[in-house]
């Protein structure tokens, strides 16, 4: 079995993934996204940077920290007929919060009340429609970057002017959500195929609870209710290996906040007691040979 691990660089997660593959007697070839140089029309007969023809890989596991590099590589490889995790379709749906919202909407999965506008004037109206405090997010981005909780019209005007003046066109798509007054924590659930294998609470005094921003991880029991919404959310964006981020609203119901397709999990195996890397890799190995 020949596997390529496509990375920007090696982080804790990639080492855990490599160890999990090794435990199953598979030694993936590590391919750096900085070395990719595809000839689009030549197809999978051309050599990967590893010196192996792309078509000889049974699987390419994409773990790029660079969303654009990973996503376009998946687009090419999938269209050459290669099996990848995740697929391009899943990555593209997750990489763009607006596309994620549309996918969730189509499947009737609860999410924060969300509006989209394309000018500062209409964005101001969108913010006032969802009411203060509102949350303004870039449609692409991660680790809580450039999120803004907007408390009043003055701050809304300032943020919108900054986005319009300083941001490129990506920041001129104004994605506005109601602020969910969560109980000092959110939930990250890890979905592998049709199963939520583990979940953590991420607690913080700050309203942004990402562990990349200092949120503290503790175990969150995977109830039937949590598993159900997470698996449905994962399928809504195309399925695969995904981290579903949820908020608990004022009455304790779940809403799906976002879905991540190259999830970070280094802080999550210890509190949950689940070997997330091994669960992921055993699932991936089991899928090789299964018709896509």
């Amino acid at each position: 079995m020949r596997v390529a691990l496509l990375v920007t660089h090696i982080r804790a997660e990639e080492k855990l993934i490599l160890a999990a593959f090794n435990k199953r007697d598979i030694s993936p070839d590590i391919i750096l996204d900085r070395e990719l140089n595809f000839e689009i029309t030549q197809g999978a007969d051309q050599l990967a940077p590893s010196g192996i023809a792309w078509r000889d890989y049974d699987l390419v596991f994409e773990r790029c920290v660079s969303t654009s590099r990973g996503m376009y590589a998946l687009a090419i490889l999938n269209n050459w007929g290669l099996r990848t995790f995740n697929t391009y379709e899943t990555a593209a749906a997750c990489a763009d919060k607006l596309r994620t919202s549309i996918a969730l909407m189509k499947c009737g999965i609860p999410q924060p009340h969300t509006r989209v506008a394309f000018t500062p004037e209409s964005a101001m109206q969108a913010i006032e429609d969802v009411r203060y405090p509102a949350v303004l997010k870039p449609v692409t981005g991660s680790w809580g970057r450039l999120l803004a909780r907007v408390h009043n019209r003055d701050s809304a005007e300032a943020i919108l002017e900054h986005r319009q003046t300083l941001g490129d066109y990506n920041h001129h798509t104004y994605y506005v959500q109601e602020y969910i007054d969560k109980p000092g924590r959110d939930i990250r659930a890890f979905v592998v195929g049709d199963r939520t294998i583990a979940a953590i609470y991420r607690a913080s005094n700050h309203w942004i609870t990402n562990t990349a921003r200092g949120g503290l991880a503790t175990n969150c029991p995977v109830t039937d209710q949590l598993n159900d919404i997470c698996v449905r959310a994962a399928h809504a964006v195309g399925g695969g290996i995904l981290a579903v981020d949820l908020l608990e609203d004022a009455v304790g119901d779940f809403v799906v906040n976002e879905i991540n397709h190259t999830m970070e999990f280094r802080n999550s195996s210890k509190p949950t007691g689940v070997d997330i890397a091994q669960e992921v890799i055993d699932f991936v190995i089991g899928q090789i040979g299964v018709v896509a």
Partner: protein
Amino acid sequence: MASETPLCPECDGEVEIPADAMENELVSCAECGMELEIMNLDPLELELAPEVEEDWGE
């Protein structure tokens, strides 16, 4: 792997390299906090890791 302790290209501090280090792994300099990338294991070569770009994340 080379036995000598490599120096941080930013601050010249000694950088601790894990025993199971890999090429292209990210490590941090304990002295200046700079994120570094292991470019070569034998001999050990460190470079400043690339700056985080806007599309980086999960």
